[in-house]
């Protein structure tokens, strides 16, 4: 699939963006608008209609995002949605909550859709600058590659996914000699540590390819 002049007109699919009040959903909405998806913002159970995929954005604190999801009454819905292996993309902290937990908020469990948990980058090398902010090259792992491969992506994070099942890591990036999971996937549930919505046209293409891949 190529992207004519950067824009594309997919069959008008509807993507729900979980709007939990933390972080920047505007960027993601702008990206989905640009790709001509129909966007529904869901901030409570009442908002959920017929959707083709769910995107969970998130920046900031793991615990704050999980609590905001709970406060919106969306925790059970998402838990079930993930259990049923429905089309899902978690971005940044939206990816982090897919694992079992994070040392950022040890008392708050994640959704546990993937095994593993998040640890602070400084535990790998305390002499390095954290957060890790910037553009990095992605290296695909030997796992069956997803259709959507991205060469470079923009990251901004302080915690990284550790103790994951290897075959659920689609790509990694190099942080001072350590391989940090960048893109994880299991069935139709995907998570990315980077920000594809801030990844130029290639990032938008990644969003589209991933969504098209999991909503066939």
């Amino acid at each position: 699939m190529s992207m004519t002049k950067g824009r594309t007109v997919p069959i008008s699919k509807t993507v729900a963006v979980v709007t939990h009040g933390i972080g920047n959903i505007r960027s993601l909405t702008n990206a989905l608008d640009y790709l001509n998806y129909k966007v529904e913002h869901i901030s409570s159970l009442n908002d959920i209609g017929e959707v083709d995929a769910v995107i969970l954005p998130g920046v900031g604190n793991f615990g704050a995002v999980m609590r905001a999801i709970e406060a919106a009454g969306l925790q059970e819905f998402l838990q079930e949605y993930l259990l049923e292996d429905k089309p899902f993309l978690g971005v940044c902290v939206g990816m982090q909550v897919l694992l079992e937990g994070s040392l950022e908020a040890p008392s708050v469990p994640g959704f546990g859709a993937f095994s593993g948990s998040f640890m602070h980058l400084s535990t790998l090398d305390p002499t390095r600058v954290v957060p890790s902010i910037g553009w990095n090259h992605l290296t695909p792992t030997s796992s069956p590659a997803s259709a959507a491969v991205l060469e470079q992506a923009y990251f901004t994070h302080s915690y990284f996914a550790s103790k994951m099942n290897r075959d659920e890591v689609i790509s990694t990036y190099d942080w001072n000699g350590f391989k940090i999971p960048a893109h994880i996937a299991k069935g139709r549930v995907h998570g990315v540590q980077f920000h594809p919505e801030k990844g130029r046209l290639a990032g938008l293409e990644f969003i589209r390819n991933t969504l098209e891949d999991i909503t066939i």
Partner: protein
Amino acid sequence: MKRLIARLDIKSEFLIKGIRFEGLKKIGDPVEAASQYYDDGVDELLLVDTVASLFGRNHLGSILENVAKRAFVPLTAAGGIRSLRDAEELFGLGADKVAVNTASFANPKLISEIANKFGAQAVVGSVHAKRGLDDWECLTEQGRERTGITVKNRIHHLIDMGAGEILITSVDNDGVQGGFDIPLTEMASETSTVPITIGGGAGVGQDILDLMGIDKLSGVAIGSLLHFHTLSVRDLKAILQNDEHDQGAHSAN
């Protein structure tokens, strides 16, 4: 890989540029310029409302909103952010980060409030550094007011308050296009445990190459060099890539 950040100073609806924060000159339309830099492959965009901290905000919001619909790279908004509400408004319009300077002196809780809600990665501590006899001092109000606080102490303080990165602008070198303040950049990069971006001084490609050896430096903010079409983002990226290639060829690692 260091980030190449295009810095756009804005006054009313215009892209402007001054020298050492003075003698502001109108250059053109900021949305057009931002779109051009984006199309040319810039890593980030920094939009600075240059009069907001003095007179209140005017046009930054609509400019930011239009840039965000067009340019899919990280956007930082700066200038006159006085409250969590101001920050929220800018995030709502498409900013990924806000940079705070002046108001965080009067209200030291501002940075932690924003960081607690939006995360440390969303708050940039902005420092306007003025060279003194044996140190650098922080200025506020777009270089009009002295604070008596050293840049080094300020960096520690900003990190304690929750800033996820720090943007240093050399007031002495700003707009002069005679090169960056290298000792300032080195000092800041050594002091900080969060990513540092340096701005103020880029005049030729070599000025940017001069920064590449500073290992812990994360980003470089460029204004005049791009706005006056001395070099394009494409030119700069090519220069940096050649340099990286040369480094790779010379080192075993």
